[in-house]
């Protein structure tokens, strides 16, 4: 079970959270302007990197706020957590986080 640092509440057990998949996929401002392929891309396609991955997490049984986390999918280390809407921290390699 992961130990996740909520930006508001500090470190909490994973069972208090819900994961919302890949982060930084903004909903298009005008979905009707997208063609079928572009809409399908937004709706269905997600990356699944081996290494650093930005994910959406919700502290569902805590402050109930959504935030983002950078997780190394190999080690499950969480390299950073940051509020929803904030830019992705500039960590692209695991070494950089050390």
């Amino acid at each position, binding site marked *: 079970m992961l130990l996740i640092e909520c930006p508001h509440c500090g470190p909490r057990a994973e069972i208090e959270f819900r994961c919302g998949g890949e982060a930084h996929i903004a909903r298009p401002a*005008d979905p009707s302007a997208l063609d*079928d392929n572009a809409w399908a891309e937004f709706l269905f396609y997600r990356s699944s990197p081996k290494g650093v991955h930005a994910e959406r997490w919700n502290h569902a049984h805590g402050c*109930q706020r959504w935030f983002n986390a950078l997780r190394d999918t190999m080690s499950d280390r969480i390299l950073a957590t940051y509020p*929803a*809407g904030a830019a992705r921290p500039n960590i692209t390699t695991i070494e950089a986080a050390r």
Partner: protein
Amino acid sequence: MTTAFRLPKGGRIDRTKPIVVRFNGREVPAFQGDTAASALLANGIHFVGRSFKYHRPRGIMSHGSEEPNALLDVDRGGNRREPNNRATVVEAFDGLALKSQNHWPSLTFDVGEINDRLGAIFVAGFYYKTFMWPPKFWTSVYEPIIRRAAGLGQAPTAPDPDRYAQRHAHAEVLVVGAGPAGIAAALVASEDPNKRVILCDEQAEPGGALLHDVTSEIDGVPTSAWVKAAIETLDARENVTILPRTTAFGYFNHNHVALAERITDHLRVPLTGLPRERLWQVRAGRVILATGAHERPLVFADNDRPGIMLAESLRCFVNRYAVLPGRQIVIATTGASAYRAAIDLKAAGASVTVVDLRLEGDCGTELVAAVHAGVEVLTNHTVIGSHGRQRVTGLIVAKLDGNGAVGAPRVLACDCAGMSGGWTPAVHLFSQSRGKLRFDSGLDAFVPGASVQAETSAGSCRGVYDLAATIADGAKAAGGSRAVAASPTYTSFQPARIMPAPPGQKPVKAFVDFQNDVTAKDIKLAVAEGFTSIEHVKRYTTTGMATDQGKTSNMNALGLLAGQLATEIPAVGTTTFRLPYTPVTFGTFAGPNRGDLFDPARVTPIHDWAVANGAKFEDVGLWKRAWYFPARDETMHQAVARETKAVRTSAGIFDASTLGKIEVTGADAAEFMNRIYTNAWTKLEVGRCRYGLMLKEDGYVFDDGVAARLSPTLFHVTTTTGGAPRVLAHMEDFLQTEWPDLKVFLTSITEQWAVIAVQGRRAREMIAPLIEDIALDDAAFPHMAVRTGHIAGVPCRLFRVSFTGELGFEINVPADYGQAVWEAVYESGRRFDVTPYGTEAMHVLRAEKGYIIVGQETDGTVTPDDLGLSGLVGKAKRDFVGKRSLVRPDVVATGRKQLVGLRTGDLSLILDEGAQIVADPNQTVPMKMIGHVTSSYMSANIGRSIALALVVDGRRRMNERLHVTTPNGFAQATVVEPVFLDPEGVRLHA
């Protein structure tokens, strides 16, 4: 009865507390402090069970949790019987009843022993190849045989009488293993009183291997005194928690370690209230693994006879339990540590011979010490077999010549034998922590490499075997240092994968994995049949599977495989060590989550009334909902017929409290509603309600419900019962992450309000006497309106809505008033024969009207248009969640399934929900299925069965005859509009 093999003094047993345990009915005298194994051995009993495949007689091989052979059925009394307990870890108490397993009719005479002689069919992979032909033999012959042969022991049939507990715990340092390294680590780590330290150990008392070391000293005191002083120091520190009888069995992410604490199994009468076991979920800042090492057995022919044990285990039984495992003992070894056992056994009065594979020149000081102690030592000797059936009677040994050739065999008579092939660090937990193992050729073992988590291994689990070095290593792991002077430890050994044997030795069984009956020959066969990966060999031969997890078998199996493949062990690698490290009861995992606490049973504020009035309940999510209210002797169908008729002829009352409710507050509330729902909300007047449909972004129906506008900036939204949490989560997600600029707040009010639905033409008359401040007439309070006021003196939000097609109200009152208001309304309705109805009648009533239920008519792939609800989609709205997906190619394509009604030819036939529909029942199989039934009931109001279905191009098939699967073949049904009653909706305005 005498305990002939109990020494007159010594050991850690309590001689003031004699006890009697039973083994297969026979009385076995013992002492408090014995294990089942030491009690049996004290009475000269080695033969305690039969092996898994071959039913070979087996004895006690080890002294710890790695025991592969001595699996016993243990009865602690009071329905506390459990199979497959390792005799070496079962603590004895007076009255404990032990039984041997895996034999019939008796331990000494077993029919299954024939398997040993038919061994040829039980070779590696026998599960996969022997039973393949002829096919028809499978069910009649092979399967029954395999089922009888598979598994050990008999599962208990009575319910488990014990309680099990669980606990989350947090520590700055968790130390696993209370041997010398673990104790040293805990001492250092706990010096800082702000550091919470947990020290756990699987044994009944801390000390690890020091518990059976009676000759070594640490800083000039016996090891037992050192342990005692250290534990007293730790115990006095408030920041230290010492957990004996507690096995760390799983190491998960972020230093989350699972421990199983055994609390009452060692007690004859468990204290009331105490749980039997407790699952600890520890989150540790740092984990120090001091898990020790396992001794390797030697692989030679018939190395499994009762009486052949690990050398260190002989030492343990004689020193810790004051039990002499035999009087004439031969110890076969390839290393030095066995000499310590030999010397201790000799000192206890046994005659001891050591047979050492090593050359005299390769031996260290242990040789002189042993000879000096009177032990006979044969160096440069191999062991090539054993004699005896139910107890070893001799080891067959031979001298090796200068070229390593095996000389003439001779038999050394014995009643007990030891074997020692060196040591294997217990890296199981390290491996579970995802740390990578590194092969150390000097130690001939895998040791921890780089850590992945905040973890440090210390002591013999990383190959540090010398006592003083182990203590220093433990202290260092905790960030300190501790230099002690201690007696030297005999540590060196010469790895031997299989003991040298004369060429052409007759077919033999030299066991590598005793528990799974895997022999050296099986591993050779697996390689010959093309298996080269250790992971494949493991599964093909079953070596290292089950509870062994490679504890005793791993290195010998790897070594043999490397030899067969003519490569080195690092190239072979090792298999993954699975959790649990040792078996854990199901009770520990279940903990308190059973019976009433298995799941929260959510009940409404009106639940007690329903119970008192005879309701039957159904589970809807976690809720208990009143299903129907049978009058005396009524069947469910009769009750539902009566309830649904009452609603259509007079009035019914229904507990709708479980409906999800959300308050949407703020200046942008209407805009938020516009974006979340398919329909438009801006123009909804205050005091009015609207039915809304909610989609996920993929365009499929997600939830539905009525929402009321209570003020320009306040909506009272209702959701389905099951959808309440996910709808709020869905709304919060969009609000927080996509539209943080909207001035909206969301609050769950599901449980603030009890909801009483009153439905039927008498509904208004029923509630009118209870309400003074709301005008109820049709003009002032039309259908789909909402008012706030008071009912029976308490505040209410009154909705004029209907899920039945009748005139109806839903009365929302603060939950604590729910039952009292219900009773008042019910009382008021008596003159109209008001009938309480349950969820089943509610379902029938809405189906008569063709109202959908999300999750019944929808399954996550249904669009508004599929349901015939495209009128609810606000096409003028620029955007809402799911809008863009409604023009996706597959959504606009023809051939989608659409909601229709079905009328069966047989009026009384109730189709199965989920039944498949075909156009032509005479087509060839596999048939083309064109839809399925989503709802199906007997309608007393219509006088026939009704059904809703999703059918390909359903709306174009009106009056078409289709065919629906039933248990008795196809039934005919005609496609009709999905509204069976009052299509004009006149009843709503009664």
